[in-house]
């Protein structure tokens, strides 16, 4: 590490993010600290799995044309990833504040990015507005691929977008419907009509899945 002491900027449930200096560059150090509640064997398995898979997915997302931070270093033993620091604003903080037209164009762009991920067989796994950063040039970076996976299955794509919908409903409930429609609009620009139709039907189905056994059996 350089002269700057790593500064904890976010303590999430899954990992802690530090702002640090590395070879004269400002970087983000993502550390997956051991979780005391999990038995160590399971804890190590989960942390190292995610530390290996996250950079791979981020790299592939980048190749697919979706802005993601550049990975500089992966230390599996320490469950630590060093990556580019993206300066900008969280979409979470932007979305409720900008004008209606800005909000919708933002969502269309997000939809396009999700479309690019999905058409390259990448599932983000945690599509919330806190995992999207808009830079001063207006690019939207996607971060936190820790729960992502490689899949082209309808179910995985449906769940991914369902999560986006749910995140909008819980955090941006006043605009959720319009925003999600805009996301779908962007998504439809990338994937073909037939696929989009199937994914939307899947999202409906996931939404209907009950928590009550009798209900599920009847279908």
């Amino acid at each position: 590490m350089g002269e700057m002491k790593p500064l904890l900027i976010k303590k999430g449930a899954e990992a802690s993010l530090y702002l640090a200096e590395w070879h004269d560059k400002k970087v983000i150090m993502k550390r997956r600290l051991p979780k005391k509640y999990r038995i160590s064997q399971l804890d190590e398995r989960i942390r190292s799995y995610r530390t290996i898979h996250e950079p791979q997915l981020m790299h592939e997302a980048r190749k697919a044309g979706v802005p993601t931070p550049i990975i500089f270093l992966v230390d599996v033993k320490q469950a630590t990833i060093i990556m580019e620091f993206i300066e900008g604003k969280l979409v979470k903080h932007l979305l409720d504040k900008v004008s209606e037209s800005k909000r919708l164009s933002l969502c269309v762009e997000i939809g396009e990015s999700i479309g690019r991920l999905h058409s390259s067989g990448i599932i983000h796994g945690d599509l919330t507005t806190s995992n999207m950063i808009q830079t001063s040039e207006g690019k939207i970076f996607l971060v936190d691929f820790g729960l992502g996976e490689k899949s082209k299955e309808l179910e995985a794509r449906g769940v991914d977008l369902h999560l986006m919908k749910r995140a909008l409903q819980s955090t941006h409930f006043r605009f959720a419907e319009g925003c999600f429609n805009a996301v779908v609009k962007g998504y439809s620009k990338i994937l073909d009509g037939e696929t989009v139709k199937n994914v939307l039907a899947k999202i409906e189905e996931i939404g209907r899945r009950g928590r009550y056994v009798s209900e599920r059996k009847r279908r």
Partner: protein
Amino acid sequence: MKGKKGDGGRYCLGIESTADDFGVGMSTFNGEVLVNVISTYAAEEGGIHPREAARHHAETASKTLKEAFTKAEIKPGDLALIAFSQGPGMGPCLRTGATVARALASYLNVPLVGVNHLVAHIEIGKLTTGAEDPVTLFVSGGSTIVSAFDAGRYRIFGETLDIAVGNCIDVFAREAGLRSREGLPAAATVEKLAGQGGKLFSLPYTVKGMDLSFSGLLTATVRLLHERKCRLEDLCHSFQETAFSMLTEVTERALAHTEKKEVLLTGGVAANKRLQSMIKAIAEEHYAKFCVVPKEFALDNGAMIAWTGVLAYTHGTVTPIERSFVKLRWRLDEVEIPWVK
């Protein structure tokens, strides 16, 4: 039981019948629970058969009501309000409870209030533990929900995408040939055996954002079980550690996201000591108070319906008979909660 001053002389009777329990509870208008009687339908084999459970509810209703009045030492004429769980749940079971509630309200000529079962679980949890604004993890045979209050409603932050964790445990227990014994449910045997296991098998750990999936875990565990290559204790241990780590991870996410200062654990699975210790650990890590709802009020019960009925009624909700149809798929986040500020 805590409560506001005054109105302790007005009583509400609540009827719960969403699944296999028929519960009758009574509470005063200031939140004192007078009685909480539960009659449970025991399936001879397999899971809950909705029609059989409903038949049980219909047969036990008058006896359970009578017992409740005797224990509470009040007369039907003393009631000022009837509340019932209007959903979500199994149709035949809900309809039986609703019919009893409608009949009582008409006969006594008192107002009727339909209550959302999930809201009731949160409200009785807050009443009995003193929690005021918690992140709630509700884990039962029918539900797996992480929720917290925001802008007038209990928002759902995470939930299962397929089966509930309690259902997952029950099915595994049945597959393993574990039966309810001496009043202990089969799930308690899974917990006991898990405590004697030590080896960890790799099982699907499926967290999607704040949502969860248990069907893959169930399938993989049952497959290992039928291969008969591992000790049942180790399998219970692996199954439980995996399932509960998933629950704890999403609860911690919701806690980090909402920055609330309390965590409320409730539902039938909340009785599991291992789950309690895991949720307690993350609560402490985020400087939040850990609250676990006492078993009597964590399981489906009538007292929670009565108390939530009081809250709804005193904030302007009544359910006329013609609008008292049951709502099988009534979501938690569809309900306006005017009594929380």
